[in-house]
């Protein structure tokens, strides 16, 4: 197993008390696998992966549990050693390409900087590699693009530059945090192609965070659905889409408009809104919004079972 996360808990000390953003998340990732992480805003999908990257810098954050990457424990690893992994073996692509690049340096310079932080190469060798990378992410004119500043590129181009940067050291694990949310649909398709190609050529494992079920169904091998800081269902793509078990997953899938057949007059929506992490309901966090909740849901918290396809729901487990 390349990445193995066990019982990860992330809490933040705030004025109103301790907020548990991630509550016991566990998952595994094999080499070359694409894992889709789905959930609403605030469900903890970004925070859990930021924890994996060691990028939670808030001094009020408490991270517990275990994150093992290739048999190395990342929780509590000295900053120096973590830095050697970050950008080198584990890379991350962020949501908003408009703000993800430093505005005052050229694209080429910023990518070369990462290469030179990890590999012993000369500046010109690094720049040659940058040119290759930019060609790989389909820049029409990579040599010219290298001397461009971020503000001179379109959103899609910037995201390609960010991806080229993430790929610069051939990472074994790539974390993509909603990389297509800020982009047009056509550009989005290009980026998804790129992620697929990348897995094919570099055999990188990818964690793809998104709230777009359509993207997941196209890209992911396995899917993990998160709600209020917990994993509520996980399974292979086919299992999850053909046989969704958790009421939340079903509701999510139900809110995608069908491509064929009669369109519903109104798209079904999940009633209510996600709970505040400060005041989670007793029992199942999804309980108050759940159409099928019954007595046990109000008292106990359902736990995700073992097995490849599992759902944290008393109805399913009963």
């Amino acid at each position, binding site marked *: 197993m390349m990445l193995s996360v066990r019982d990860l808990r992330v809490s933040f000390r705030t004025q109103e008390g301790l907020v548990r953003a991630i509550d016991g998340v566990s998952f595994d990732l094999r080499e070359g696998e694409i894992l889709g992480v789905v959930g609403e805003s605030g469900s903890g999908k970004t925070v859990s992966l930021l924890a994996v990257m060691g990028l939670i810098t808030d001094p009020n954050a408490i991270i517990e549990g275990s994150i093992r990457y290739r048999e190395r424990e990342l929780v509590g690893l000295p900053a120096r050693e973590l830095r050697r992994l970050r950008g*080198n073996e584990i890379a991350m692509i*962020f949501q908003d390409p408009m*703000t993800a690049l430093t*505005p*005052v340096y*050229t694209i080429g310079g910023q990518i070369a900087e*990462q290469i030179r932080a990890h590999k012993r190469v000369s500046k010109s060798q690094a720049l040659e590699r940058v040119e290759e990378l930019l060609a790989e992410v389909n820049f029409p004119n990579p040599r010219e693009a290298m001397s461009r500043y971020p503000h001179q590129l379109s959103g899609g181009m910037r995201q390609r530059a960010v991806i080229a940067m993430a790929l610069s050291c051939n990472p074994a694990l790539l974390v993509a945090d909603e990389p297509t949310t800020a982009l047009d649909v056509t550009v989005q398709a290009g980026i998804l192609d790129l992620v697929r190609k990348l897995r094919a050529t570099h055999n990188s494992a990818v964690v793809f965070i998104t709230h777009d079920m359509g993207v997941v169904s196209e890209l992911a091998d396995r899917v993990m659905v998160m709600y209020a800081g917990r994993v509520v269902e996980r399974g292979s793509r086919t299992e999850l889409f053909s046989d969704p078990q958790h009421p939340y997953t079903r509701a999510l899938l139900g809110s995608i408009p069908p491509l064929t057949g009669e369109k519903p007059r109104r798209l079904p929506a999940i009633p209510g809104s996600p709970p505040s992490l400060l005041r989670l309901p007793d029992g199942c966090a999804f309980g108050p919004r759940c159409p099928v909740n019954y007595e046990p849901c109000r008292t106990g918290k359902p736990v995700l079972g073992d097995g490849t396809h599992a759902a944290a729901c008393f109805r399913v487990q009963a």
Partner: protein
Amino acid sequence: MIYAILRRFGQMLFVMFGISVIVFLIFFATPGSDPAARIAGRNASPEVLEAVRHNFGFDRPLYVQYGLMMKKIFVTGDLTSFVNRGWKVVPAVLDSIPVTLSLVFGAAVLWVVVSIVIGIVAAATRDSWVDKLLMALGLLGISMPVYWLGEVMNLITQSRYHDTWLFSWVPPLGYKSFSDDPKGWFLALVIPWVTLAILYIGIYGRVLRAAIIESMQEDYIRTARAKGLSETRILLRHALRTSLIAFVTLFGLDFGALVGGSALLTEVVFGLQGIGKLTYDALQSLDLPMIMATVMYASMFVVVANAIVDFVYILLDPRVRTS
């Protein structure tokens, strides 16, 4: 980039022209006042008054008067002070420029270097006792008025402790020309430099610290961390560079104002015959030609300093280059 610089230079000339017209109009075209009488000074004889009137072209149209004035200041340089009996104004201004420039330039080097160091160290050690100590010292520096601090400095270095090993090198008050005596120039200015710089070190250190801490919240800092860069490199290359923009803006304004005469208090305290002192004396004796010349000079410096700031912007921030 060249085009942006040239265009900024053109703007600068235009602004200077505008300022010269406005300053001229304020002094010479204010309704109900007779500029000739003010130039000639109190109790001037009718002959002198007539000579002034003719000399400055007050019997001719306004634009001729403006032209004559500019000619006297910038071309022939023979603008004469009547209040001070034939004192040539332009050489007096030119003589005081090196004094003020020496004072302000040296202080500026000191405050820029020290405040950058303080800003970086405070931001890097944010909320620690080092940060708190530096910011408290900065506040202290800002709170001390420069005339008071200058007098205290003089009290310590010129009288009370002058005979100790620590301050025996401090020369008596006054300015020494750099070309005559470089060492004397330096020694005479050390204490004034420190005195003038302390206020600005406080302000700039605090401003830079705040700007760096703000930049450290940006998304691109998270990207830089994800790249695996060291915290030092992130701070110095990614956060500092973008934070310097606010710093440079402030610097342009303060430097221009100081060179244009705002260093008056420091000049008076340390007996330096600079441009601030000159303007102050001219205002005291209502010496209109002198006021005219120093105001023109001061405004030009503010304009030039701002243009330099804009050039530095172009270097610092690529986004400014194209627009």
